[in-house]
């Protein structure tokens, strides 16, 4: 079956990790993960600037590894990301900010990508809150 996952919570929330474990489980079961969509505070998952304490799970790093390993489509809502200070190189240049925090394979795009995923996947599963 085809899944889409939307993550609305930041990596310091338990639901962010739950989303990761759910993604791993569905891939292990042979299902397809058509898209990961990060909205609201979920956009922080894409940040290369997060420094996790050594004895804690580094969720942005774990997401990146999962995305690379399975060549997943990982979309970050651009409007939600900009207002939370998560920019890729292109946006950093556009808004004259001194650095950027989001690199490929993460992609910045609009909410249309969430709707497209909701329409095409068999299930959209949202993760948010604690």
């Amino acid at each position, binding site marked *: 079956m085809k899944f889409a996952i939307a993550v609305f919570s930041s990596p310091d929330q338990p639901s962010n990790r739950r989303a990761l474990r759910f993604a791993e489980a569905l891939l292990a079961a042979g299902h397809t993960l058509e898209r990961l969509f990060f*909205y*609201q505070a979920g956009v922080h998952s894409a940040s290369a600037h997060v420094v996790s304490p050594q004895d804690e799970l580094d969720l942005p790093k774990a997401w990146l590894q999962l995305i690379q390993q399975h060549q997943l489509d990982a979309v970050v809502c651009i409007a939600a990301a900009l207002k939370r200070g998560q920019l890729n190189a292109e946006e950093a240049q556009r808004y004259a900010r001194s650095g950027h925090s989001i690199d490929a394979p993460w992609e910045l795009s609009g909410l249309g990508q969430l*709707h497209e995923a909701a329409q095409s996947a068999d299930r959209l599963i949202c993760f948010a809150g604690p």
Partner: protein
Amino acid sequence: MMSKAILLVSRHAPTDGSSARELLDIALAGGAFDLPISLLLLDDGVLQLAPHDFSLLQQKNLSANLQALALFGVEQIYAAERSLCERGLNTLNSTLPVQRLDDAAVSQLYRQHDVVITL
């Protein structure tokens, strides 16, 4: 293929951070793609129908976004009657064309849609 019907459930007051606004953004984006979108205001979400002076909080006026829904083809807007009553808003006169639903009708709304997103 027919588009899946999407129910967006908004549970946050307009003064409670960006959730109400970000849910409306999902509704407007869906409307722009001509998708069948319904909006349900539930729990504190019904406060979006009540008058506010957002300027005092240096916040943009959320009611403008609500009014824009119709322009984007989002015309199915519902509010939970129980949530309004609980908050002393049962006599509220909203300028927005909103259908009030009792508990059974709210449950029915979930049954009638293919996708639900709650914020």
